[in-house]
């Protein structure tokens, strides 16, 4: 599934760690950040996360790409914090966000989607007692992954058809055509699931 995932192939220690361990580590880190008080502490944790990127062999440009889409929010938040609580507080708050975002992205970049899905299914196993079927969860994840490229293909067809008729982009017509054709696809998929023994 490599062409549909953010995973960066590699053989580093972080790549080889089991997905479950990385997710637990991320959880632990996010709990730690609740107690971070000063900009220095945040800086230390941020340095630790950046070391993680170095270990995984992921370069600065990919690190920057994780944060860039947040810039607008970070600027607003920093501005408000400087104004109300001073620059120290602004650094702490913005730094904590960057730490969490970078750490979470590091897990994503070093873990295959399938390994992550297996970890989720394993994590669901204790939930069996409350009626969650872990296998059904895994099946739904797989089905959804399969459906994304199929529906994206339908979306391209719909766009092309509208362009061929010289229609300017009309969100309403586009939306109706996309959803109706996707629901037809779903009916066919439901038939196929039944034919292939989903009810066994």
């Amino acid at each position, binding site marked *: 599934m490599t062409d549909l995932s953010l995973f960066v192939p590699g053989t580093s220690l972080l790549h080889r760690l089991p997905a479950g361990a990385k997710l637990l580590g991320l959880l632990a880190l996010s709990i730690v950040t609740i107690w971070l008080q000063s900009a220095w502490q945040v800086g230390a944790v941020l340095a630790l996360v950046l070391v993680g990127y170095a270990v995984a062999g992921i370069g600065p440009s990919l690190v920057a790409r994780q944060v860039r889409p947040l810039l607008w929010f970070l600027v607003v938040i920093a501005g408000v914090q400087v104004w109300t609580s001073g620059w120290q507080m602004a650094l702490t708050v913005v730094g904590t966000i960057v730490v969490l975002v970078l750490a979470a992205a590091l897990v994503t970049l070093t873990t295959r989607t399938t390994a992550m899905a297996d970890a989720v299914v394993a994590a669901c196993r204790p939930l069996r007692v409350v009626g969650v079927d872990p296998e059904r969860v895994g099946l739904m994840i797989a089905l959804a992954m399969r459906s994304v490229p199929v529906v994206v293909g339908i979306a391209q067809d719909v766009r092309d058809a509208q362009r061929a008729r010289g229609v300017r982009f009309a969100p309403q017509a586009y939306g109706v055509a996309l959803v109706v054709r996707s629901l037809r*696809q779903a009916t066919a*998929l439901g*038939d196929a*699931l*039944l*034919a*292939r*023994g989903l009810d*066994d």
Partner: protein
Amino acid sequence: MIEVSGVSQVYGAGAARRTVLDGVEVTLSEHRIGVVGSNGSGKSTFARLLNGLVEPTRGTVTVDGLDTVREGRAVRQKVGFCFTDPDSQIVMPTVREDVAFGLRRKGLRGAAADPVVDDALARFGLSALADSPAHTLSGGEKQLLALCSVLITEPDVLVLDEPTTLLDLRNARRIGDVVASLPQQVLLVTHQLDLLAGFDRVLVFDEGRLVHDDAPAGAVDHYRRLMA
């Protein structure tokens, strides 16, 4: 042995009421059976009746004595089904996972399924694509994958609903060759009449009725006259 007795299929009610199949009565025991008819003739609904995907409004359909409505599950284990559009029947993200999906009903999962899956992929010439995402396959490869995924469960009967309609000539021939080599009983719905060479029996549907039932030559003649 498939027995279709007194089957009618009606959709909707009132003004929207449409009779899709009308009084179909037929027993299917031949090794190779073709089904032809124009668009909307009811042949696709007929195919879906045979594994219980469609439940008859009136009448009954049985496969080796099993009723498709009451024992749908058991029927679907006996009758494999291949659809026209491979994209709607490939249900898993990668080739290997999709082939393995059908083995769940046999209790084969995970690593235990691997040798069976590898074997099937090799037979269909799909080994090199085992870990490819399904959506990166060509149309012909997708239909081969669909066929592979159905046949791995070793059904007694295979029903194919226009499996080559969306394919080019070369890939259509490839699917045709695979189908011809199968040990199973095959029921093939198609517009490509040359695929029916060597078949034992061909059914012709028109406006919801079974209008002709003959050896391929006679049935195809009848169909051509009907379409003229």
